């Protein structure tokens, strides 16, 4: 990552925030459909039907109510009653914003922020901290500091309001560079600024329908930053008492959208036989996508079948890549409740992959504790031993035990 200072996450991060509620037993999700099994009686075997001849009246069938010709047999489809569902590339989410009636625009703004916006925001006292000269006020900025803000409304966009490719590259680079500056400012404030301004970069890309390697590179870096900030800010969650805290699920939602846009770009190029210029990055991005779907985290809900959907729409080369295999191993270990294998995978993963896996530390430890409690003979276990089995410190083990309602006695 470009000049990003990153502290060592260490095992102490995040355990202090187990889920608000005790985890349910790790049983399989129940199928919620109706029973309806009364229907599965012994039906009459289908009679052999002649192939339907176009132009001929189809023979009425013997069973009443089925006189809809050879409807069910689908003999027209080569005798296949049901097709193999070939996997398809996911239909892309509407991450590409094309307001109705406008065609792709080509931006002409060479600055990080269109001058018209800078003027407008200056007059409205809407210049943010990083956009002000040192000691400056909310009403003044300059072209080396102002960065275009994200805005939902994109009608009547004129080319001068949209940044050129070089301007976008410069903007992204500048934004990441901010992380090294102003050490007195909390990472979270920087992160919120970047989150918004990078979203605007993404918007400019999509307004211009830029989907080539240049766009991929920018988006990939945004993904990495979002993953990093998820971990850095895991203890700064927004709460009633801390409303300006980090909104993890919003961040993850944006992250997921960016990943979807990226996948669409990669698939698009693969479909046209061009092949991606950056196979390792593609594999890395896909591994993030899978890692994020291992389980629900915080307020971000995950449906188990989503992972299979994702997998089915990936190309074999990506599936068999090292990054993706690691993500699958993590998924396997997590759902097998094998905390040893899980942390082994964590050790083998890249720093950023570990940032995502970190989201599940509390849950897997909680489940491990629950499992121990349910399956080990009644005994008192030294906290140090529990900590060892849970791969955490004694303090964390104590907190976890208390959280799950287990008694901790002092000896």
């Amino acid at each position: 990552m470009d000049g990003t200072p990153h502290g060592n996450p260490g095992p102490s991060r995040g355990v202090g925030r187990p889920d608000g509620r005790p985890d349910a037993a790790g049983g399989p999700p129940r199928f919620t459909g109706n029973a309806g099994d009364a229907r599965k009686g012994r039906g009459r075997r289908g009679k052999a039907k002649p192939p339907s001849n176009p132009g001929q009246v189809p023979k009425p069938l013997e069973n009443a109510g089925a006189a809809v010709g050879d409807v069910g047999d689908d003999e027209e489809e080569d005798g296949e009653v049901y097709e193999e569902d070939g996997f398809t590339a996911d239909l892309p989410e509407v991450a590409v914003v094309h307001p109705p009636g406008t065609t792709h625009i080509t931006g002409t703004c060479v600055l990080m922020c269109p001058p018209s916006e800078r003027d407008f925001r200056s007059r409205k006292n809407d210049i943010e901290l990083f956009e002000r000269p040192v000691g400056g006020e909310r009403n003044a900025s300059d072209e080396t500091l102002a960065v275009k803000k994200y805005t939902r409304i994109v009608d009547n966009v004129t080319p001068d309001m949209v940044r050129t490719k070089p301007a976008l590259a410069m903007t992204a680079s500048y934004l990441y560079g901010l992380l090294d500056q102003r050490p007195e400012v909390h990472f979270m404030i920087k992160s919120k600024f970047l989150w918004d301004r990078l979203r605007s970069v993404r918007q400019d890309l999509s307004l211009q329908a830029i989907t080539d390697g240049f766009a991929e590179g920018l988006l990939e870096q945004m993904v990495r930053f979002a993953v990093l900030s998820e971990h850095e800010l895991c203890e700064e969650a927004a709460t009633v008492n801390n409303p300006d805290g980090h909104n993890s699920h919003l961040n993850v939602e944006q992250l997921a959208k960016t990943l979807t846009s990226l996948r669409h770009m990669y698939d698009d190029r693969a479909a046209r036989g061009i092949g991606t210029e950056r196979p390792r990055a593609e594999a890395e991005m896909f591994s993030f996508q899978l890692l994020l779907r291992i389980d629900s985290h915080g307020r971000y809900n995950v449906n188990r079948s989503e992972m299979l959907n994702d997998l089915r729409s990936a190309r074999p080369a990506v599936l068999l890549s090292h990054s993706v295999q690691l993500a699958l191993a993590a998924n396997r270990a997590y759902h097998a409740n094998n905390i040893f294998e899980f942390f082994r995978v964590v050790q083998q993963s890249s720093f950023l992959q570990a940032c995502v896996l970190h989201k599940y530390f509390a849950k897997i430890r909680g489940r491990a504790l629950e499992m121990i409690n349910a399956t080990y003979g009644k005994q008192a276990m030294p906290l140090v031993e529990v900590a060892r089995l849970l791969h955490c410190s004694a303090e964390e083990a104590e907190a976890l035990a208390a959280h799950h309602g287990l008694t901790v006695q002092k000896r």
Partner: protein
Amino acid sequence: GVPWGAGATMAALGQYLDAASAAVRAQEGAQLARLLDVANPDAMRAVTSALAENREVNLGALCQQRLPQPHDEVFAFHCQCLGAIAEGRAEDAFAAVTSTTQAFVKDFRLQETAWSLDALVNLVKAAKALAERADAALAAAGKKAGKLHDAGALLMLVYRNTANTSVQEKKRASLFLVVSLFKIYFKLNTLHLCKNLIAAVNLPTFPSFESFPSSQKVTYSYYVGRLAVFDDDYARAEKNLTYAFEHCSTRHPKNKKLVLRYLVPVKLILGRRPTKRLLDKYDLDEYKSVVECVRKGDVRELNDALQKHQVTFIMQGTFLVLEKLRDVATRALFQKTHAFCAAKNPQKANQVSLHVFAKALAWCGAGMDIDEVECVVANLIFRKLIKGYVSHKSRVVVLAKTGAFPPLS
């Protein structure tokens, strides 16, 4: 041969439309269905020869002259569709059949009988096929392929207009429509949309399941079974997939194989094994080693087999369910270990040393340290595959005196 003088070509189209008009006025359902079948060669010839004579022929006007409303619209769009098909314009063909169907439904809704249902079914089939063709063309051109999604919406429209009615005969095509929608949703990976359909089938207002043709019931059960697999509901999956397998005609071995592809892993999870003969008969090579490993408790070999074929399993959608077999294999190995320990030490027949189990795992190539071994076994207990408890201090599993290895189903 028919003389191809000027006017003879238009005459063919005229004849076609007259036949349509007659069918509509006499409410001849079978005839109408034939006329609205996109595969009908006479209709196709009538349209293409008319277009050849005059490409700007006003189909709308011609239809209006000969057909009562709204069938004039229906046939105008249908002719447009045939023309587009003949010229290989897939997107246009799909757009046309969508319009045809929508116009058709407007009339069908108001009918007090289901006389024209067969025709509607033909339109639906055409819509789905043309959507797929259109999507293939779009994808090849590097564009977004969203026609199948639109076909789904169209089918839902037809479904609503044939299912929510007091005219019972209109519901004859309901299961066909449900199954067609399943196919679309599976292709589009929008499986969550299937749940509402299943709920609809289970409503008392839905016609008796038995009343539908066998092939539709088989297909329905196949998809319901597959959905149950995604939801980890193996009992329900087994029930439905077994029904599909048993009722699937032997004239469709490919379909039987498709069912088995999902039924075999489900049965394995429930503790039942397919015979080698069955696997041979349906050419299920990729399952042969899997079945053997699960039986022998060969954890390492199973892992290798799953790794080796993972891309195939992922594409088939069996990947996640096959992962569950690791537990089954581990349990089988543990059971063998228990038998071994009990034989060696009959006094302590209900105890299994974790160290011995660790050796067994190491021996089949899946060695792990004692803490992890304990974790793995604890997991089997937690998931109720084994009944007993772990004695952490002595690294021993104490099994229940009876029913230590409950049946998996």
